[in-house]
């Protein structure tokens, strides 16, 4: 039997309106908790992108002397090829290296002026099989190989920053989960009150032989709508916070942080995830309520 769409829509809307204070509480809790979830996800992606940009996914950089000869460069290239810990390497010549330096030093124009393509050291950017081997490998290049200026691995500060954001994320996610559980309970309670408010109708429906699903669907849908509305509010908050961060970074020209603003694709994925979690919370809360308090 088809459940008439019009009937279900009408019933759900009436229920929500009759129970609006309860519904509002549930929706706002979902919104707050999902904003936290969304923020935590965005933070993670932003930090990963920024760190990736800073270190360019490179765990070892071998800078050559600006005056290094072609022979010396070829020599280093073959040493790299013979080092088993290094999985992949790219060489940036003077022009490429200069471009890269301009990006990294964008915040200090005086440093850029001091550079020319000819004076910028060329560099091998390498990926290691295991980043923890960076110290050992860089030692072999720092040990007086002709033409090598310096071999470096990502600084300690980046690793500390990664750890701090990891801890921050865990804290945000724990708070978000607690709030999600409480919003689930709030939705459950809202549906329970809706069932209680409509016990006469439910009684009549059972007597005249309405099917179980017919009786349940409006209540389930009510929970789903609450979850969805909360999630949409959260999605707007997440979007605004991302725009806000982007605006601040541009306004204060902190271009080193340029990658912390996420591209549209990542943002859309995060928003979809937020909405999905909202739907799941709404449906879960109302299913539990319907199963426990609506004996059909």
């Amino acid at each position, binding site marked *: *039997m088809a*459940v008439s769409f019009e009937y279900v829509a009408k019933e759900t809307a009436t229920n929500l309106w009759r129970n609006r204070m309860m519904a509002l509480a549930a929706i706002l809790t979902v919104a707050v908790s999902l904003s936290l979830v969304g923020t935590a996800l965005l933070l993670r992606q932003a930090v990963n992108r920024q760190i990736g940009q800073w270190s360019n996914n490179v765990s070892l950089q071998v800078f050559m002397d600006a005056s290094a000869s072609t022979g010396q460069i070829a020599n280093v290239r073959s040493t790299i090829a013979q080092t088993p810990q290094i999985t992949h390497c790219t060489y940036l010549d003077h022009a490429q290296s200069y471009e890269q330096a301009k990006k990294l030093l964008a915040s200090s124009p005086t440093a850029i002026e001091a550079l020319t393509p000819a004076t910028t050291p060329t560099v091998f950017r390498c990926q290691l099989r295991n980043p923890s081997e960076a110290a050992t490998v860089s030692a072999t290049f720092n040990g007086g190989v002709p033409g090598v200026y310096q071999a470096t691995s990502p600084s300690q500060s980046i690793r500390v920053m990664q750890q701090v954001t990891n801890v921050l994320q865990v804290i945000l996610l724990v708070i978000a989960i607690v709030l999600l559980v409480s919003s689930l309970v709030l939705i459950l309670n809202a549906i329970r009150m809706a069932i209680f408010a409509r016990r*006469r*109708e439910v009684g*009549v429906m059972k007597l*005249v*032989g*309405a099917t179980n699903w*017919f009786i349940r669907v409006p209540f389930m849908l009510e929970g789903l709508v609450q979850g969805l509305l909360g999630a949409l509010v959260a999605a707007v908050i997440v979007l605004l916070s991302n725009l806000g961060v982007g605006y601040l970074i541009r306004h204060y020209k902190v271009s080193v942080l340029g990658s912390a603003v996420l591209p549209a694709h990542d943002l859309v994925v995060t928003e979809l995830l937020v909405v999905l979690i909202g739907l799941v919370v709404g449906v879960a809360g109302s299913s539990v309520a319907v199963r426990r308090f609506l004996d059909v």
Partner: protein
Amino acid sequence: MIRFDNVTKSYKGQPPALGGISLEIQKGEFVFLVGSSGSGKTTFLRLLLREAVPDTGAIWVAGRNIGELSHWRVPSLRRNLGCVFQDFRLLPNKTVTENVAFALEVIGRPRNVISNQVGQVLELVGLGQKGDRMPHELSGGEQQRVAIARAFVNRPLVILADEPTGNLDPATSQGIMKLLDRINRTGTTVVMATHDVGIVDTMRRRVIELDRGRLVRDQARGVYGAAEDMTTSTRGVPAVAVAAGLDRMLGAEPTTGRVAAVRARRGQR
């Protein structure tokens, strides 16, 4: 239509509400279910609706053993049973028409069928002009007519009525009984639990009496009190008068005075 095979039902820690009931009700019968409070009448109706299942024995409704009905088939059983209660159970925030239409809406009937059938059934119960009223604007008798319309609108095989006249004065009750009788004449089986002596004695239909969960009497054209012969059963009212009263009651307009007079003569209980 309805068959009880040695049905027993007891609630926790209490003597059986129904003990070993066996009986059969044919299609189109009009049956009074009588007995004092706690005799098992309500349990009888609850079992028929499958709001409860028997501990032992089997109940057959329209050829189906409803004790073995799976959960999801219960609604289709209930679509064949119309229910009327002492307290009407109308939805206070819906009009008369909406109340009756609700019963069809929630079983997914299309809109044109609903408006058609609701109109017909409201004419049948004599409320054709009052479709837009709210339940609280109606008298008790009119509210019960709405409840009967709602129970009958889907043309069930059986109408189950649990003391439908319990809240109504005698004249109004008569009107309700006329209506139930008219519905019965369409071939619908009617099972009515009642305490109303006057109605049972006047209608002279099959009477099933329960006492503490036992079937103590099953009498065609019976009366309310247990009776060996006509004279005692009607407590002094000659059978001819009863029959005449029945005819008048089913045919003519209700007359409060006559019923009151009959009751007075009986030393009304």
